């Protein structure tokens, strides 16, 4: 039953080859068998999953199902789920039971998905290796000595090891795309504002966006159809209805204009990644696309701008974790200040504290103009770069990461080295554009991903391009030996 895409599982469920309950039991047993190795899940919701599976089977019997009804799914532990522990992989929330559902969860519940559990992640989504989790590091299914990427490392590992059919993730600077690249799967970050952020624990509000982590572009489109679209609970979610992403998957790529950023082919890009990218471009050419270089002259500034804006927003977003109303509170505080200091010092991990301090500093009187305002100016320039490039091309394709998955502990000593992991993905968040990573090669048994970037709210085109690539290649079908 396992190792199939959502689209395949959906067809099998429709044909009655097996029930959702059987499928769910199969996934639960795989989780029991392998989660100890990969640590992809923080919480397994077995009881809930079986109840949802039974309900899905009944829906199917009544003919009230959609393509996702009965499909086993995992949610990144950043999405609030009512009556389920929602930790954000932090000690701060290690006992937090959410009183409500995130819109993404609500919509997938309504579509009839079966929730297997909550996946591991970097604490508060801050990290690129999934090593900052309070619940321990996640291991890459292709090589357990290596990281799965982050911050949605648990979701990516769970999909790659087939411990769920599909998963949700969030992406602030590359947190869906980079782990998708490291784990050899498809990761999709929609345009900022396409999917409601209600119930998604905020890291950097102006950059965070939810999206699917899946085995194919078609599966991503299936999930997008369920979760995209306006939500009155999120003012930054656009009011325009989302299109049917399945409808355009098979559009031809004849005449598609692809841009390759000159700056992404420069120093720092691993040779194995570059050759995979070139091979992929050949495939696109064979499908009728034309390739040209484009210029993103300010892309070298993106990491610096990001590490001002994201920590600045995070420093305020994480102020609510103060030990007063919920979450971790230190033992026996002697007064208010002591309670604040120790609850936050003990409740947050070191990377989270580092970013709170960077953000607090950047917003301080006397530094605000030099850091925050300057970073916002760079952000506008980066958006302009993309706007200019998209005058000449329809999609931009480049590497997702400079190299394949690195070893656990390899980049922990120097935060800046870790921050540079997201050098190709961060600009996309700063510009608010849709981006995705699809598998396009392999090196020494480790997957290589390429990144596709689309125009504002042009998700359908991006999914179409990725799907056509996957119809003509089989990188996305390769699975690790679990």
């Amino acid at each position, binding site marked *: 039953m396992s190792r199939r895409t959502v689209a395949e599982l959906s067809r099998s469920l429709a044909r009655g080859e097996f029930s959702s309950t059987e499928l769910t039991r199969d996934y639960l047993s795989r989780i029991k068998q392998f989660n100890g190795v990969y640590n992809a899940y923080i919480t397994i919701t077995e009881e809930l999953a079986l109840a949802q599976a039974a309900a899905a089977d009944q829906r199917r019997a009544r003919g009230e199902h959609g393509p996702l009804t009965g499909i086993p799914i995992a949610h990144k532990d950043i999405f609030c789920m009512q009556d389920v522990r929602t930790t954000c992989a932090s000690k701060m929330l290690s006992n937090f039971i959410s009183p409500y559902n995130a819109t993404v969860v609500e919509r997938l519940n309504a579509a009839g998905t079966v929730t297997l559990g909550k996946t591991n992640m970097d604490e508060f989504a801050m990290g690129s290796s999934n090593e900052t989790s309070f619940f321990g590091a996640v291991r890459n299914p292709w090589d357990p000595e290596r990281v799965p990427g982050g911050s949605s490392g648990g979701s990516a590992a769970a999909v790659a090891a087939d411990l769920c059919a599909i998963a949700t993730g969030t992406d602030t600077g590359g947190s869906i795309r980079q782990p998708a690249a490291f784990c050899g799967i498809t990761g999709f970050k929609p345009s900022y504002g396409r999917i409601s*952020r209600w119930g*998604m624990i905020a890291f950097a*509000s102006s950059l965070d966006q939810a999206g699917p982590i899946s085995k194919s572009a078609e599966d991503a489109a299936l999930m997008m159809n369920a979760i995209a679209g306006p939500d009155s*609970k999120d*003012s930054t979610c656009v009011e325009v209805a989302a299109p049917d992403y399945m409808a355009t998957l098979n559009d031809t790529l004849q005449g598609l204009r692809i841009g390759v950023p000159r700056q992404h082919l420069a120093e720092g890009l691993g040779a194995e990644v570059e050759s995979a990218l070139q091979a992929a471009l050949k495939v696109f050419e064979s499908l009728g696309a034309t390739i040209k270089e484009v210029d993103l002259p300010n892309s070298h500034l993106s990491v610096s701008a990001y590490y001002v804006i994201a920590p600045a927003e995070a420093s305020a977003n*994480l*102020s*609510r974790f103060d030990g007063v109303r919920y979450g971790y509170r230190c033992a026996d505080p002697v007064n*208010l200040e002591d309670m604040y200091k120790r609850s936050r010092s003990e409740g947050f991990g070191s990377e989270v504290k580092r970013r709170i301090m960077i953000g607090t500093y950047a*917003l301080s009187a006397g530094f605000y103009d030099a850091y925050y305002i300057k970073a916002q100016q760079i952000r506008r320039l980066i958006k302009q770069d993309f706007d200019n490039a998209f005058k000449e091309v329809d999609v931009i394709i480049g590497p997702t990461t400079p190299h394949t998955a690195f070893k656990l502990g390899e980049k922990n000593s120097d935060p800046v080295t870790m921050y540079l992991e997201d050098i190709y993905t961060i600009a996309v968040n700063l510009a608010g554009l849709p981006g995705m990573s699809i598998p396009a090669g392999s090196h020494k048994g480790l997957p290589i991903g390429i990144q596709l970037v689309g125009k504002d709210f042009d998700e359908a085109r991006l999914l179409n391009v990725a799907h056509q690539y996957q119809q003509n290649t089989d990188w996305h079908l390769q699975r690790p030996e679990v």
Partner: protein
Amino acid sequence: MVWETVIGLEVHVQLDTKSKLFSGSSTTFGAEPNTQAGIYDLAMPGTLPVFNEAVLRMAVKFGLAIDAEIGRRSVFDRKNYFYPDLPKGYQVTQLAFPTVGKGSLQITLEDGSEKVIGITRAHIEEDAGKSLHEDFQGLTGIDLNRAGTALLEIVSEPELRNAKEAVAYLKKLHAIILYLGISDGNMAQGSMRCDANVSVRQLGATEFGTRTEIKNINSFRFVEKAINHEVRRQIDIIEDGGRIIQETRLYDADKDETRSMRSKEVANDYRYFPEPDLLPVVIDEAYIEAVRAELPELPNAKRARFVSQYGLSEYDAGVLSSSREMANFYEEVVNICGDTKLSANWVTVDLQGLLNKSDLEISQSPVSASRLGALIGRIKDQTISGKIAKAVFEAMLGSEQSVDEIIESQGLQQVTDSGAIEKLVDEVIAANPEQVAQFRAGKEKVFAFFIGQAMKVSKGKANPDQLNALLLQKLKG
């Protein structure tokens, strides 16, 4: 040395919306603690704000009422600080782009002259919750019912020159807010709170002195007392060769003094930045004009109309238009009795005296406008005299009876039967032969004595005109 006082007021007005600024929670005052705090108000992880449009409408209404610039694009910012009753660890407010920009307010000074006070800005922000320090054995309880309630913070220019001006400004602001119906303006319940920035300087100086900020003054009376106290304190310090420290001070009404809360020198760095969870609020001319069309008649316009339409003095018109309730009450009385001046007298003198004595607002008046109108109507149609009317007014206070029932049951109708009056006059003349002789001898002053005697015997009920005429006729014999 002659000192000049410089005062600027920051007034927080709780806007009277059904739900909070960014959440659907109710705003009713006095509910059980934390029963009106939803998941956003509690700053549950993942929750987001949704701007309540009713708040925008109220802010724009206020802006138009003070002739202010209306921000076509206003932006919310986060003001960061930690406090247990501030659940998110930041307050959402408007820093650089407030909804209401520069405007002004005209106030009337004690000598009757007018002064225009500049208003710097008025911005929308959320209120904090309350920390409860009693009843928790040394611990602090948090009530988040108020957290997230919409506030309009109205900041004046430092153009007030003494405590009385500050009170006049605050009262005018209060009146406008009630006229607009955007807040209940209840200072005791905290719906309107005032912080005063106070400094002193030598008369004629162009630089401002160092100011202190007096926090949370919760009545008009305390504003005056707090400022006067603070001015005295500052002058004493400077005259003793000292220096004023810029700080926040708290007014203690029991001791009638201000005391230091915290020094600005160690104050928070609030690290403001634009709130990324909310879009800028953009409004166009059509929106502004639609709000303008909803504006009620404001105090100054009403005063002018009372003068021209009802023939009132500037003073009476000013008193009667000082609040919308007062003006409405007055106009209802006029509608019933038809006498504008008599109504003005009764409302400003008799009724106001009664209210002052019992410390009541016009809205709590024990005598309704319709009953007062009926009473004045009976003076006008000569059923009772003005003097008797005062007795009826007294009787109305403890009674549910109508004006006519009171007059009827206590037999207070004027005696207009000429036979009865003649009998009365005859009695009085017969009983006072000595005074009759004096009158007839030319001492006309004695006439008043006869009126008094006759009124006494008739218990004030004799129609004065008829009594006058008959008495004169009989005495002259």
